[in-house]
């Protein structure tokens, strides 16, 4: 018989070990899944995790690591602040879309002007757009105690409809022969978020993600507000006694995560995606939730988790091409990772103890 015993304090070593355990378990379970789909599991796992980095065509896929990892990290950093305080913004996808719409809208409004201030303005507009979209659940939560999970999620669907409306209407390319979608930023040099160093995938969004990691680290470890956030999540009663202002924490966490998601959207739409189109968003807002948890809500952890998740995206695409692995299998694979991670977390907070059956 085994029994669970709550640890007096969360185990530090297991906190670092569980993500690795979860990745291993996902590889095993994923391998079984790929086998069930009639693929060689070892080849599939190698294609996903190894080939994009060191395989034959790695020089093409390696830059993608930053291109795909950048937005994931940027969004997940914002989300992790809220998650730490027990504030669940799961509508990052919506904030990402609205940020992209606002930022791209500002950029396109200047077309074809060539000026240095356009791109910075777009970033600001993107951040503000995402911030404003996140402020809806934040203000409703502060004012009416409305559940932020449901509101932020509902706003994802609203944002998706708004995106469709915009790419068919206001932001449609006037020279696009009636096709849906905006002008392509690749044809508008000033507003284009291109690679900073060629063939690295490094663009402004990735730089921003790195800056966000550093700022989040400083905030959480060296700043009063970061302490308030952690206290609110870990010991709400203590937070109350320490007179932490819950309104401030809610507004800050949701606002920041919204702004970061919005910027991520802008960087994506003005760079890798190139244009506003009905389905330019690729679910980064949801995958970022997995990234945040996989990174243990820690800025540095999120950095690695984001890169790993980007790897599964790239490897997944590669496996689709070379092995014919369905795209949905990769999505399932990513979902599994979160499952195993949450399950493995048990070991952080509890220890498994052997107990002898006592005679009654």
């Amino acid at each position: 018989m085994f029994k669970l015993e709550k640890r007096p304090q969360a185990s530090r070593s297991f906190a670092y070990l569980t993500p690795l355990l979860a990745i291993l378990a996902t590889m095993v379970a994923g391998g079984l899944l790929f086998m069930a789909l009639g693929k060689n599991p070892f080849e599939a796992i190698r294609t996903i995790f190894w080939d994009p980095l060191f395989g034959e065509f790695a020089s093409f896929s390696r830059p993608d690591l930053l291109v795909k990892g950048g937005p994931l990290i940027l969004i997940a950093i914002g989300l992790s602040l809220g998650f730490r305080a027990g504030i669940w913004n799961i509508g990052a996808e919506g904030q990402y879309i609205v940020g992209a719409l606002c930022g791209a809208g500002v950029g396109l409004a200047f077309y074809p002007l060539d000026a240095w201030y356009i791109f910075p303005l777009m970033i600001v507009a993107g951040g503000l757009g995402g911030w404003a979209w996140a402020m809806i659940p934040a203000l409703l939560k502060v004012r009416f105690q409305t559940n932020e999970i449901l509101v932020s999620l509902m706003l994802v669907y609203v944002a998706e409809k708004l995106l469709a409306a915009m790419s068919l209407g206001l932001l449609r390319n006037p020279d696009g022969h009636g096709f849906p979608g905006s002008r392509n930023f690749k044809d508008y040099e000033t507003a284009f978020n291109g690679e900073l160093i060629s063939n690295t995938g490094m663009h402004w969004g990735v730089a921003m993600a790195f800056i966000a990691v550093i700022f989040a680290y400083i905030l959480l470890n060296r700043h009063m507000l970061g302490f308030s956030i952690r206290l609110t999540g870990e010991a709400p009663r203590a937070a109350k006694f320490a007179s932490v202002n819950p309104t401030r924490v809610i507004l800050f966490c949701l606002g920041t995560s919204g702004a970061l998601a919005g910027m991520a959207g802008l960087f994506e739409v003005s760079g890798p995606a190139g244009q506003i189109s009905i389905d330019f968003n690729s679910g980064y807002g949801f995958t970022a939730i997995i990234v945040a948890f996989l990174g243990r809500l820690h800025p540095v952890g999120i950095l690695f988790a984001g890169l790993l998740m980007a790897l599964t995206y790239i490897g997944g695409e590669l496996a689709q091409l070379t092995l014919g692995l369905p795209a949905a299998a990769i999505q399932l694979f990513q979902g599994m990772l979160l499952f195993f991670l949450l399950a493995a977390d048990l070991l952080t907070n509890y220890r498994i103890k052997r107990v002898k059956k006592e005679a009654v």
Partner: protein
Amino acid sequence: MDLSAINPALLLASLLVAATPILLAGIGELVVERAGVLNLGVEGMMITGAICGFMATILTGSPALGFVFAAMGGAALSLLFALLTQYALANQVASGLALTLFGLGLSSLLGQDYVGLKPPSTPQLDIPLLSDIPVLGTVLFNHDMVVYFGIALVVAVWATLKYSRLGLILRAVGENHDAAHALGYKVVRIRVFAIMFGGACAGLGGAYISLVRVPQWTEGMTAGAGWIALALVVFASWKPWRVLLGAWLFGGINVLQLNLQAAGVAIPVEYLTMSPYIITILVLVIMSADKSRAPASLGRIFHASS
């Protein structure tokens, strides 16, 4: 624009049909939450039910069997959530999200070869005489079994919660799991069954979308219905009857906006299709003033430490 093209009787009849998926999922989630568990994976369980039901119907040719498999699929997926939250003591919010992400992936993997197929239609329950009453017959007595099953389920859940011993135990577990444990009730076991009941209901609701409402399979076809069902439980202040009322309200809004689209109102389609989500938010805001009705142990982790 031609509003006269909207037939009120048909509108009410399709309201009942549109309300059924969220009604089923909502009443299931209500039981789960009354047991003190917050399962945010409704969307994932619904879409899994949708594809399980669809596949079973295509393979066996019987919609009835399809619904049975949908319920089983939803319950099986919810078992994962039960394992995570009840045995691995994981955070319920995160586990529910994981369940949704997982369910969406699983369903699109299962459904790859089923895109574009058409399932055999679910038979209408034609009640002689009753179905022929002019307006009332169209509105009330011209539906398939599942519509009535959904309403019957609400009645059954209400009666069980209010009058039976089982209902009392379930509520005790949801209100104060430590006290229920002290009284000797198996908190974890009761919660696992409640979660599976919720999963089965969500599965049925999903299958109703893929077999009757649409009826075909497309990826992500539940389009937030599971989240609306979650909002429905809050709207209902955890009372079964109000789930029914809320489901009809949401169903009505959905049908109305579809009818307005068809009638060619001057509002672009994209803005009309936003309306169910925006109204959900508005309703949440209005209802969230009254938090007193939420089960007291909702979302809290139970661990019988000695």
